[in-house]
């Protein structure tokens, strides 16, 4: 087992040598790369990475350039998780046969994918990885939309959001189906660790990623990734939007251990009304028209209910 990187505070964290590079083609202010940096800097171990098709992959591997300073592979939209699971299986086999040049260096195997690639297109592939028990971490960069192809709805898109395939207009308030609860679905595989994270809470993120690296078996991470282009806010406000997401409890931060034990890891001192979170983003602008205002109340009720549910589960240890 390799040693866990000691990160007591942000100053200490800032001595990390990044293994992700700039001059990639992600939008200014994109949260994908903030998440990636926090994850990669959480360890000093070698890394074997994949990215499924989507903004992160497309923008960091534009021939003849790569923005990755670690082994990195891209194959298709659906199979980033299995690509890394394959590498992990090969690694185990070579180790068993004594054919590794440096068997004491155990890499971390991480698959990055969008919500489209995880909640929809790569769903069964991820499920297979979780079920087979590979020692990998799958991280969803959850911007709640197919951003790379122009903003089509995915099963992560929340109610009332205007997406290109569920646009708001005279007859519609946008997306009508509630966001899929991936955390519960993934935890139901009985995996050792599933957690929801947000880049503004870097310490919570690092703790969870390090825990995920330390356990043996598959790990699922859902990371909220505010998208300046599709959520429609100014690039400078990415962290402000992330703050609103966690502090309104629209994205509660919690973990589920062994598919059972649920812990809430962040309780905002001042809970922000959901309305404030919605008002800060262009994709929800139409909800503030008189005829759709009732949806804001419904939003708040849904968030309150979910928070109560999480608290009940935490208390009951189930």
């Amino acid at each position: 087992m390799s040693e866990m990187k000691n990160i007591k505070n942000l100053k200490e964290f800032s001595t990390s040598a990044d293994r992700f590079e700039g001059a990639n083609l992600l939008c200014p202010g994109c949260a994908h790369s903030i998440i990636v940096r926090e994850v990669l800097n959480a360890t000093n171990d070698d890394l074997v990475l994949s990215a499924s098709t989507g903004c992160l992959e497309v923008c960091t591997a534009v021939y003849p350039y790569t923005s990755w300073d670690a082994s990195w592979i891209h194959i298709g939209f659906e199979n980033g998780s299995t690509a890394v699971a394959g590498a992990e299986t090969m690694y185990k086999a070579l180790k068993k046969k004594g054919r590794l040049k440096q068997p004491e260096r155990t890499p971390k195997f991480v698959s990055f994918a969008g919500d489209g690639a995880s909640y929809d297109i790569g769903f069964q592939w991820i499920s297979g990885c979780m079920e087979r028990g590979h020692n990998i971490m799958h991280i969803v960069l959850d911007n709640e939309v197919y951003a790379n192809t122009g903003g089509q709805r995915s099963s992560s898109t929340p109610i009332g959001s205007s997406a290109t395939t569920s646009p708001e207009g005279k007859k519609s308030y946008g997306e009508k189906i509630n966001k899929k609860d991936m955390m519960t679905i993934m935890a139901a595989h009985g995996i050792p660790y599933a957690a929801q994270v947000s880049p503004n809470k870097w310490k919570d993120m690092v703790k969870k990623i390090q825990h995920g690296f330390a356990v043996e078996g598959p790990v699922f991470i859902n990371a909220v990734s505010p998208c300046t282009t599709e959520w429609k806010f100014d690039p400078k406000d990415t962290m402000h939007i992330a703050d609103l997401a966690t502090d309104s409890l629209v994205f509660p931060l919690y973990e589920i251990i062994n598919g059972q034990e649920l812990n809430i890891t962040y309780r905002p001192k001042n809970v922000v009304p959901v309305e404030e979170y919605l008002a800060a983003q262009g994709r929800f602008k139409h909800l503030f028209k008189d005829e759709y205002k009732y949806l804001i109340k419904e939003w708040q009720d849904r968030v309150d209910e979910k928070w109560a549910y999480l608290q009940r589960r935490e208390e009951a240890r189930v």
Partner: protein
Amino acid sequence: MAKKGWDEFEIGAMLRTFDGKIDNIAATQQEDRAYSQNSSYTASVADWRLIKPVFNKDYCIDCQFCWIYCPDVSIISRDKKLVGVDMDHCKGCGICVEVCPTNPKSLLMFPEQADEESVIANWPKKDEEEA
């Protein structure tokens, strides 16, 4: 074309980030790495910017918020101190300025053509800052 076995496949493209052998990249800072021409580190997105961040070290408390939240690895920190902004890789998003907690801020956005020395000389004072 020669027939391929089941475990042979056509590699789309393989890029090497570094020239030569690299032993412990996680312990090697950018300036000590031998990047190959395929690393985007060797490219620039400076022409994306209309506005740029300027760093004024006089007020900086080295909290490193700007370092952690910069999406583009463009805040250079070494030995827990903020050194400056990497102007080849900064896209001018302005996040670093938003998250800077000092008053006045230690980072502010200015038009790309602004002269750094003169904006630092005319840096806003504490009471000029909005609350």
